């Protein structure tokens, strides 16, 4: 088939897309997808898994009391609203780019809420939900996308590292950080056990740095959790091009446990991540979690999914929406009613207004200030170029007066 003749919008190559896009039903390839909260809003009371050949009861890690479930829903709802507002801000020219997370709220909120304060997270560039759980001011995230900084927050305050745009580079940083935690713990056993967590996606799983980080982590039993959000798409390329086996299964080759969890089930994601972090903190080495989810929106605001994926695929994932299933459960169980959801809507609307106000007030830094951030210690070339730049700028000070 001549691909150049493919219609752009709703193409007729379903067979080809399907052939390269295995559905991975539960149990195939020997990997099950752990789930507690089903798409229809029913909740299991226990969670067991076969992990690395052992039967593990994950039920003790389940947190499903009413307050907790409502707070998980609140986080997911707020971050989706944040996502919508950010998309709007980009469309209105206030942000250079936006990276939507819609569809991945459960994977991010669930894993983020599993972290202890002393744990340290290394995000990619889409982990807005994890940022929320770490207490990062959401407006600070937008400073990067507004183009006024390449960072935005002090990572040490929230144990949440800066976004990393070079795919998978941060996974090695997470492993190195974990090696540091390991040494700190040996030097001072009274420190609370801690782990790091490396976020990455199905696309980044093909990067060499993921391989190297897993080798290093396994070799040194580093307390790190590799958290892969398999959202099915690396921009336009389906996950089947990145892997022929479920990503969770790759852990076998490195000699540590790998688990696949329904990434749209916030309760299961949180439980599995809590278990994995405890495993890592207790000195038993790394764990790989594959959160099986779906990027319901575009890769970024510069992307156009209609060119490469079927709207039917998108429609198939709609009923698995992570927010819908928790709302259904909360309503059916009588744990939340219209008042709760209405109040949340109001809270989110207020947040969006505040966010917009913050973004519009963000101003560009002076280029002169950037010279000071290149090196920690004085550098003669930087100083010389700063002097030149300031003199050059000063030359324009009188401009207009003589006009």
């Amino acid at each position, binding site marked *: 088939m001549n691909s150049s003749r493919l219609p752009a919008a709703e193409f007729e190559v379903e067979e080809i897309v399907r052939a390269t896009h295995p559905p991975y039903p539960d149990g195939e390839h020997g990997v099950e997808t752990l789930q507690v909260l089903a798409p229809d809003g029913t909740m299991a009371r226990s969670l067991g898994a076969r992990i690395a050949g052992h039967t593990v009861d994950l039920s003790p890690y389940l947190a499903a009391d009413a307050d907790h479930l409502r707070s998980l829903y609140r986080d997911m709802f707020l971050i989706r609203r944040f996502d919508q507002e950010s998309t709007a801000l980009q469309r209105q020219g206030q942000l250079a780019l936006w990276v939507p997370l819609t569809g991945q709220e459960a994977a991010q909120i669930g894993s983020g809420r599993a972290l202890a304060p002393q744990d340290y997270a290394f995000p990619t560039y889409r982990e807005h939900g994890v940022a929320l759980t770490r207490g990062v001011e959401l407006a600070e995230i937008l400073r990067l996308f507004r183009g006024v900084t390449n960072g935005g927050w002090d990572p040490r305050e929230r144990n949440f590292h800066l976004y990393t745009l070079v795919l998978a580079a941060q996974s090695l940083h997470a492993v190195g950080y974990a090696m540091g935690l390991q040494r700190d713990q040996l030097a001072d056993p009274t420190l609370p056990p801690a782990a790091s967590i490396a976020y990455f996606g199905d696309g980044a799983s093909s990067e060499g740095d993921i391989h190297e980080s897993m080798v290093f982590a396994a070799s040194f039993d580093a307390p790190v959790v590799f958290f892969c959000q398999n959202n099915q798409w690396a921009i336009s390329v389906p996950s089947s091009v990145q892997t022929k086996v479920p990503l969770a299964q790759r852990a076998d080759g490195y000699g540590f446990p790998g688990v696949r969890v329904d990434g749209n089930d916030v309760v299961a994601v949180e439980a599995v991540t809590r278990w994995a972090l405890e495993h890592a903190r207790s000195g038993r080495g790394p764990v790989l979690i594959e959160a099986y989810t779906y990027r319901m929106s575009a890769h970024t605001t510069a992307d156009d999914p209609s060119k490469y994926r079927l709207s039917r695929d998108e429609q198939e994932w709609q009923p698995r929406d992570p927010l819908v299933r928790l709302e259904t459960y909360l309503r059916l169980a009588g744990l939340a009613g219209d008042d709760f959801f209405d109040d949340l809507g109001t809270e989110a609307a207020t947040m969006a207004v505040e966010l917009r106000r913050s973004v519009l007030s963000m101003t560009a830094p002076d280029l002169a200030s950037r010279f000071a951030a290149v090196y920690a210690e004085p550098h003669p070339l*930087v100083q010389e170029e700063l002097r030149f730049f300031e003199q050059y700028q000063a030359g324009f000070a009188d401009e207009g007066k003589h006009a």
Partner: protein
Amino acid sequence: MATMTIAKAINEGLRASLENDPKTLLMGEDIGELGGVYRVTDGLKKDFGALRVVDSPLAESGIIGTAIGLALRGYRPICEIQFDGFVFPGFNQITTQLAKLRTRSDGMLSAPVVIRIPYGGGIGSVEHHSESPEALFAHTAGLRIITPSNAQDAYWMIQQAVTCEDPVIVFEPKRRYWLKGEVDTSAPAGDPFSASVLRSGTDATVVAYGPLVPVALAAAAAAEEDGRSVEVIDLRSISPIDFDTVTASVTRTGRLIVAHEAPTFGGIGGEIAARISERAFLSLEAPVIRVGGFHMPYPVARVEEQYLPDIDRILEALDRAFAY
């Protein structure tokens, strides 16, 4: 004062760093029991243990990337890259991550990672074992690059790299590892990012660094027999470059030759030539002349002697400068 080889001086410098700061640690391939392929870390694992002298998996990106993570946790990792040509699997971590951490955190974070790279040719080795890639790193803002040429500098500069808050790449002149020199372990160390005038002269200046410093000194001695008084500067630091010292020299001598093993095109010599033409144009009696490698991948060992700048190549450049 003690007499030791450059390799031993670096070894002693690393030992001092490990003793001085419990947060320092060494990482690299074969640096433990073996002591590295050049034995620069010989005996350190025995004395400091496997947590501080880490035999890493064979993966350069992994070494640099995990070192960045360790630095974020407050450690000061000192990485060994086995050979110059093997730094490239770690190039991404060095240039996109390590070099930029300070800037992208708006000055909040620092990355005091040291990367030791044995570099240069003249050892009759196979492909990828004789390269001089320093210009690729010098072009990257956020990194500092130093290269000692003698045992005294080697002992101190490695320690200064470790205490520096910025990432520092230490290019070690591997064919000079066995060059002996006096080391004063009690002398206060000078600025590692400054150049040093090793020989005074009045008629021309030769700037060299790393493995070519002894060659430049020998060329200056030979030139003296022809009645030419040649000043020799050991650059020591490739980023930043101590242009003040070079400018002051050229202002007096009026002629400048820059010699390095790396190819001249797009290299450090070109940068020095440009800066000096801006700073000392009216003092120059001749164009700045570069002596260096040719625009080709490093050649096979049997012809490397023709490729590498030697005394005659520097003398020929001096002839051209004087004939101008």
